[in-house]
Each structure stands twice: as structure tokens, then as C-alpha cells.
């Protein structure tokens, strides 16, 4: 099960040093963040929110709140899919578009999501004055940013790698572009896209919970949902309420896993050309019921007919009397358009640079930038130390589990659900301890960052260990390779690629979590750890948008640099040296 193998699939394409397009894209993204910040600053009047319904701590309303949270997730998912289809396809079809979209997406993946939320929320509120729709949109947007980039990337890549013979079939039988998209490209991309969507949705729970309760410019915004419920419970120091919320969330995730995730994966089996020998066919009891019930099958047929009509919709169909289709290439004109496009992008890049320059120069001193950089280094070292500590625990344990198939199956299911569980719901328990025993927040708040992210390491290691070929283990037995030699020569090298994948995901999660994990409160007690995450949170609370943008920009840059200098080379090295067998596409 290669949940996250697709995540860094861009590595082979990109070298560690940035090229021209990377820099342009970086300018765009940074300028975008600062532009939002600037807009927010200009509108620094207190927000005119409507009558916000107070959040009740009555456990009976929890299912209702949970429903609100789930709906937010689904709306975001819909928009992510729309974005994916439009931009993924555009990038795959046009070389000009690819040059800017792909690096931009690559950089957007490094932007801390909750930070993004704090600069965009002001604009959203402005869009819908006097109602909760603004913050509602901002929350959906936060989830959107946590999945759209990823999905677009995967879609782009799979559309690009549609086997030549399938693509030619489409041309040979004169399918229109619309028919090709729905009959060939989308189905081909479905399994990969689905896995990725599910993985991003797991992370999405974290952000939806964090995005529901946010304090901007000294104003608390609470959207009805589990996240706000928890926030209110923390303020009231109500341990029972938190317990109920955690329980509800567990149930929601279990339902989501059983009713949505598994049936979809089982359904997507049919899009895979051939069964891989190493993978088991995904099964789902829900899907089986669906397939075996007559009524459900009837609905299925109706759905298929509807889809059929949609694919063959008249306006997107070539006229039946054309005997000759269009020539494959249109040479004339393309060059001029290409040049105009590039000049346009370059001018925009320069504009972005000038804007950034003035904005930064006007609002931020050099000493401030240096200080933020140092804060970034502190948070970086936290991330690395935590990953190292987690590795010491989960690598041996994961290998032990992975080598025992029965245990592995159970463990993997549990780890997957745990990784979807928004760890921020568990923060109060730890914060309570820190407050109670007066522990040093700089040390003891750190584990919060890795609380949710550690599972990525575990289930990747388990997956890796369970895929070690049996004959290699037998050879080791046969040659009497035991103890440390066995670990050094067989077990560790064979899980290495999986470890790298898991670690990359975990590090990404930890960075994102740092914004909520470096500042915590319990009742009226507030504890703060020094770091870039707390810097962003603190200035979000008081509404200093220039500083928020600086913090986000810095985090984005640091994550990018680490990705390029450490993770990518490591990933490529692992792929080349340690992946057993041919490929697991």
C-alpha cells in the first residue's frame, strides 16, 4: 500500500537548484501572500460579523457540529476536484501553462496552510460583510489548500503518463477532447487521484478543526463545528466536553473510513489495468452490499446511463459528417503566442518582485527578518529532533510489525485511522499536564507537532517491512545472518525508501502543525514556545498582517530549501538504490 508514494513524484523532474520558472513561481506565491496581507491591513476596521450563534457545550449537539464539519470537508473536496481537473489538465496539455503551474504548485505545497488562512480570512470576510459566510469560506479554503495542490500534481502526472496506445486509440477512433477526457484521462488517473485525495483528506481533518476557531485581530471567530466545540471547551477548561468531542471525532472518522474511503478504493480497482502481484484486491463490505443488491444495481445502471449521456453530450461531440479530423499540430501562430505568454509572465514576475520589495521595505526592518529567520531555525531543529526521536521508536517497531502479516494488517488499519484523526483535539490533555506540573513549554510543547504526523512514519515502515520478499528473509536465515548484521544488511535497507516517504510526509505535517502547536492554552492559562509557529499565531491574534506574511513567507522558504536540499536528494537516492523489484506503479 503506497499511500504517499506519489507525493514526491516530482523529484525526478526537478534538480535541487531552482531554475528560472521556479523563481518566477516563488515570486508569484510570495507576492500573493503579501498582497492578501496588504488588503487585510487596508481593511483593518473591526469585522462586522452577524449574530454568531454561541457554541454550546452540550454533548447532544455534537452530532450536529460533526455534520457541519463534514460538510465543510466535502465542499472543499468538490472545489479541489474542480481545480484539479481544470489546472491539472491545462498543465498537462499546454507546455506554456505547465512551466508556470507546476513550479507554482510545488511552492504552494510548502506554504503553511493555517498561516495562509490567517491572511486570507480578512478578504473573505470583506466579501460577505455581516455574515458568517466569510469565515465559512475561509475554513473551506484552508482545507482546499491542504489538498488541491497535491491532487493537481498527481492528476497532471497521470494524465501525462497515459500510455501512448490508449491516447492513440482515442485519436484513431475520433473521440472529441471532451470524450477523451472522461473516457480515457480521468479513468486512468482515478486510482492515483483517489489515494491522494484520501490521504489529503486525512490531513484535512486537522485543518478543518483548526480553521473553525480562529482569532484574528483580537476577534474570536467561531464556526459551528467540532473544532469550535473544542476551543470553547478549552476556554472553559471542561475536560468532559473535550472527551465527548474526541469520541465523536473518532466515530466520524470511522464512518468516513468505512462508508466512503474503503468503498471508493474497492470501486477504483476496476480502473487498474492489471493486478499487481504484491497488492491484495481492496475489498469493502459496503461495496459488496451495493453490488449484490438488486435495487442498488438498478441505481448503478441509472447512474451509468447518466454518465454516458454526460460524456456524449451533444455540444462537445464532433459532427458526424467530418471525414478528416484536424491536423495534429498547428504550427503557425504558436510561436508568437508562446513569446507573448513568456513576456507576459516575465512582466508579472517583475511586478511581483517590485511589490514585494516595497511592501517589505515599508513595513519590516532587516533586524526583524533576521529574528524571524532565527525563529525559523528553532522550529526547524524542533521538527528534525522530533522526527529523529520518532524514528528511533517507530522504525524497529514498524519492522517488527510488518514482518508479522496478521499483526501488520490490524496495525496498518489502526495507524491509518490515527493518522486521519486530527491531533489538535488531543492537545488539551498534554497542555493540561504542562500547566499542572509547570513544565518548560519550549521542550514540552514540541511533541504536539509530531503527535499526528508520526503515524505516517509508522505505516510506511509497516508497509515496507511487509513487502520485503520472503526469499530474501529465507536467504538471510539460510546464511545465518542474525542480530545487528540482519538489520544492517537486510531490514533497514529494504524499508529505507518507505522510511524516506513517511518522513517527508511527517515533516510536512509537523511544519503545518507548528502554527497551532507552539501556542497552547488551558482555561485562562496560556503557554508559548519560542518559534516561527508561535510568531505567526501571535501576530494573527493581534492582526499584524505584514508580520504574518513575513512569517509565512519565511516558513515557506525554509520548507522549500529543506525539500530541495535534503528530502529530494534522499528520495531519489532511495528510489535508485533501495527499491526492490522493478517498479510499483
Amino acid at each position, binding site marked *: 500500500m503506497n499511500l504517499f508514494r506519489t507525493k514526491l513524484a516530482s523529484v525526478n523532474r526537478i534538480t535541487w537548484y531552482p531554475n528560472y520558472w521556479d523563481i518566477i513561481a516563488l515570486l508569484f506565491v510570495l507576492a500573493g501572500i503579501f498582497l492578501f496581507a496588504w488588503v487585510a491591513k487596508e481593511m483593518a476596521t473591526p469585522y462586522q460579523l452577524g449574530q454568531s450563534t454561541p457554541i454550546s457545550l452540550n454533548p447532544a449537539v455534537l452530532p450536529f457540529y460533526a455534520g457541519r464539519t463534514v460538510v465543510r470537508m466535502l465542499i472543499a473536496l468538490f472545489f479541489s476536484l474542480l481545480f484539479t481537473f481544470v489546472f491539472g489538465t491545462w498543465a498537462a496539455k499546454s507546455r506554456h501553462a505547465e512551466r508556470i503551474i507546476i513550479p507554482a504548485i510545488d511552492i504552494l505545497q510548502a506554504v503553511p496552510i493555517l498561516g495562509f488562512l490567517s491572511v486570507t480570512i480578512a478578504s473573505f470576510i470583506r466579501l460577505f460583510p455581516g455574515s458568517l459566510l466569510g469565515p465559512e469560506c475561509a475554513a473551506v479554503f484552508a482545507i482546499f489548500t491542504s489538498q488541491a495542490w497535491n491532487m493537481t500534481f498527481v492528476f497532471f502526472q497521470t494524465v501525462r503518463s497515459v*500510455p501512448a*496506445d*490508449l491516447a*492513440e*486509440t482515442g*485519436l*484513431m*477512433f*475520433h*473521440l*472529441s477532447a471532451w*470524450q477523451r477526457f472522461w*473516457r*480515457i484521462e480521468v*479513468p486512468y488517473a*482515478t486510482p492515483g487521484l483517489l489515494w491522494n485525495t484520501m490521504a489529503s483528506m486525512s490531513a484535512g481533518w486537522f485543518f478543518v478543526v483548526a480553521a473553525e476557531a480562529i482569532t484574528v485581530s483580537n476577534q474570536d471567530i467561531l464556526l459551528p463545528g467540532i473544532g469550535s466545540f473544542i476551543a470553547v471547551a478549552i476556554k472553559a477548561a471542561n475536560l468532559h466536553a473535550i472527551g465527548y468531542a474526541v469520541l465523536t471525532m473518532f466515530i466520524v472518522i470511522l464512518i468516513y473510513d468505512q462508508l466512503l474511503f474503503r468503498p471508493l478504493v474497492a470501486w477504483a480497482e*476496476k*480502473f*487498474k*489495468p*492489471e*493486478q499487481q502481484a504484491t497488492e491484495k484486491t481492496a475489498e469493502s463490505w459496503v461495496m459488496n452490499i451495493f453490488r449484490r443488491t438488486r435495487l442498488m444495481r438498478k441505481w448503478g445502471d441509472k447512474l451509468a*446511463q447518466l454518465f*454516458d449521456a454526460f*460524456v*456524449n453530450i*451533444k455540444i462537445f*461531440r*464532433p*459532427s*458526424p459528417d*467530418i*471525414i*478528416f*479530423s*484536424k*491536423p*495534429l*499540430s498547428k504550427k503557425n501562430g504558436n510561436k508568437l503566442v508562446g513569446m507573448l505568454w513568456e513576456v507576459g509572465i516575465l512582466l508579472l514576475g517583475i511586478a511581483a518582485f517590485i511589490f514585494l520589495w516595497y511592501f517589505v521595505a515599508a513595513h519590516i526592518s532587516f533586524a526583524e527578518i533576521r529574528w524571524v529567520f532565527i525563529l525559523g531555525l528553532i522550529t526547524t531543529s524542533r521538527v528534525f529532533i522530533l522526527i529523529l526521536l520518532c524514528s528511533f521508536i517507530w522504525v524497529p517497531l514498524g519492522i517488527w510489525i510488518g514482518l508479522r502479516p496478521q499483526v501488520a494488517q490490524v496495525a496498518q488499519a489502526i495507524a491509518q485511522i490515527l493518522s486521519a484523526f486530527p491531533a489538535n483535539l488531543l492537545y488539551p490533555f498534554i497542555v493540561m499536564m504542562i500547566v499542572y506540573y509547570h513544565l518548560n513549554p519550549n521542550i514540552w510543547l514540541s511533541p504536539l507537532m509530531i503527535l499526528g504526523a508520526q503515524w505516517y512514519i509508522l505505516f510506511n515502515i509497516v508497509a515496507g517491512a511487509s513487502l520485503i520478499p520472503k526469499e530474501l528473509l529465507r536467504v538471510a536465515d539460510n546464511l545465518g545472518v542474525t542480530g545487528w548484521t540482519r538489520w544492517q544488511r537486510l531490514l533497514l535497507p529494504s524499508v529505507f525508501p518507505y522510511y524516506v516517504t513517511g518522513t517527508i510526509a511527517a515533516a510536512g505535517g509537523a511544519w503545518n502543525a507548528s502554527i497551532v502547536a507552539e501556542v497552547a492554552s488551558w482555561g485562562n492559562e496560556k503557554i508559548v514556545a519560542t518559534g516561527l509557529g508561535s510568531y505567526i499565531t501571535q501576530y494573527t491574534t493581534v492582526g499584524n498582517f505584514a508580520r504574518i506574511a513575513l512569517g509565512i513567507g519565511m516558513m515557506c522558504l525554509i520548507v522549500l530549501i529543506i525539500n530541495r536540499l535534503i528530502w529530494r536528494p534522499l528520495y531519489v537516492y532511495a528510489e*535508485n*538504490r533501495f527499491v526492490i523489484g522493478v517498479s510499483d506503479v
Partner: protein
Amino acid sequence: MSDPIIEVVEMQKYFKTGDRQDRLVLHNINFKMFEGEIVAILGKSGSGKSTLLRIISGLTEPSAGVIYYRGRLISGPVRGISMVFQTFALLPWLTVLQNVELGLEAQGLPRKERREQALKVIDMIGLDGFETALPKELSGGMRQRVGFARALVVKPDILLMDEPFSALDVLTADTLKSDLLDLWQTRMIGINAILFVTHSIEEAIAFADRIILFDSDPGTIRSDVKISLPFPRSDLDPRFRNQVDRIYTLMTAEPQEARIQDGMIDIGYRLPDVNIEEITGLLEILNSPEHNGKMDLPVLAETLTHNLDELFPLTDIVQILRFAKVSEGDIAITQEGKTFVDADILERKKIFSIQLTKFIPLARYIHNQLTRHPRHRALEEHFLSLLEDYLSEKEAEDVLRIVIEWGRYAELFAYDYNSGVLNLESGH
């Protein structure tokens, strides 16, 4: 005769390689196809035969020259020309029925009509009972039947087939071939001509009225052979065997062969992907008492169960290395070849290393470069960029990988995978 259905005039095709020059794949192609013909295109791998088929289908554009379909210029996929793919190219997420309906769907036929026509063809091609199956549930032969049904349901004028049977085992392929031939002869399908690419001489002779023989590097039409044996044709028929021998002789008399025999290959020669074991194995078979150093190529092909794509790369390389010589459809071992097989493992490496530096310019060049370098090392990128002047990126990588494998075996140089550094084998 009537007007040709397909006419190719003065056609050329280049592929982009490196920055400096393009590789000529098809050169000066002129050919016509008439109503009622089955034509086979036969040639070694890399002779551009599949490219020609793709150009006629409209999927690829020629670099120069024109193609006419019934007097009209082809500039993209044409309605009336249908294609069967080597890899079947079925959409794995569609059922057999939906796959067959695909072309009709594109024509905008209503759902009911689509279904009717598709079912008719499915019946005809022997797929009834499998309508709701997904392609992955089917065997290879059944999958290709779907491929045929899909191509036939749009009622094409011409059927193009790109090595349609090469992914199938012998028995399955034979059944499918005779079924198709039946359909063609009984005029059950409304096709007016079939053009197919193959690398099997037997297949071409069994099927075609005419064989277009291709030369490689660059691909040119060498000869146009009429096959007038009556149907059904049996490969046990002596007249059939005669035709096989005739084609082999024609193929080994290519100017390309002469170039190989004279040691005229240059540094950018596309070395065939053949490993040392295959070379040694071939020479051992030749040298065995029962063959006494000489074999008929068709017999060798049968012994090795190799088709043209596998056989000719092997015979090319043993010729280049001067281990054997091919003439008039026969292959004979040389003195060097004999010494090589008779030697022990270490001795073999020495002989191989001598032949390698003598006759493979690329191996010689790499060795020289390494000898000259003060620390006897060089980066693989250096050689790759040299090769990319002659070959595409992918081909250059393949060729370098092959020469590195041979060079390592010959202990001519060593190679480090991680750093991509080549250096002189030291201590030997």
C-alpha cells in the same frame, strides 16, 4: 488497375535528437496500396516500419512528402482507416461491449443503435458471452479479439495492424489469424484492404499478397515481393519454405549488412541490446558438433525461437565483433569465434576485450579517454552528450548502458553506479 487506396509519395521522417542533427528514420518512401490487397511491412527493429504505419494512420506527421487516402491528403486520423494495436490498447475500465462501442460513441450514434451494431460485431468475432467482462478478465487472444471488434465496428475501409499477433502465444495467434483470414475471404467484413506490420517472416508469408521489405538506418523500401501462393497456406509446404529462405536471403543481403561486415560502424552506432550470455550461447550452438560451425538462419531462428527483432540484433553484433559471418541466409562461425568459445572464462574475457576495442569505436573511444585522463576517470555524462549527437536521449542511454556492460565484462573499464564515474580497471 484501379486507383490506389493509399498512396505515399516521397515521404521522409526525421526524429529530433540532441541539438545538432536529426535522425533520419524513413527515407524516400514511395508506395501504393490497392483495393483487395493484404500488404505486410517486414523489417528489422529500428527500420521505421511502425512509424510508417503510424504516419499512414494519421497519428504521426511526416517530415516531408505526402500521403493520400483515396486521392485526399491525410493530415490527421481519417474516418475510414481503423487500427489494431500490438498491445491491444483496450480501455481497462470499460467492459468488452463498451470498448467496442467506443468508435460509435465518437460518431455520435444514439445509445441503442450503438449497442445493436456492437453486439453484431461481437457475435461475428466470437466474443458473445463476454460482453460484460472487463478486459483484465480475458486471455490475451480474447483481448485482441476485442481489439479487432472495436476496429471493425466502425466499418472501416482500410484496416491497419501494428504487429497484432506478436503479444500472443503461437497457438492463440494461429487461431486468431485463421479466423481473421476467414472473415476476409468470405467478405463478412466490409474492409477493402489490410496493411500490417510484422517482424515474423512466416506471418508475412502466411497472410500477405505482397511484402514490403524494409532496410534499416534509415528505413527505406528495399523490395516489394509478391506472394502468390494459394490459400490456405501451410508453413510445411516446401513452396512456403522456399519463400522463407528467399526473404532471409534478401534481408541478409542488405547494404546495412555490408557496412557491418566491413567494420564501418561509427561511434554513434546504435549497439543492439544483447548481453554477453546471448553472444556466447549463439556461438556455442554454432560450434556444437551437430552444426559444425554453420547454420541456416531460418533454422537458427527456430532453434532459438527468436523472431526477426531478436535474431538480427544478435547476428549483427557477432558479425561486428568478427565472431561469425552471415551470407545468403547462412551464418558461419569464424576462427576468432571458435577460439572464443573454446577458451575458459578468463581467456574469453581477454579475447572479448581485444575484439571490443578493435571493432566497437565507442568502446575504443571510452578506453582511450580514460587512458589519457591523468586520474583515469571520466563522467558518464561526457559520453552521453557525445552519443546524443547521433541518437535520441533514450537510445543514447541504452547504448551507453550496453557498452558499459560489455566493457565491465571485458574488464576494460569499471563503472560506479552511484556517482556515474567510469574509470580504468586497475590491478589487472
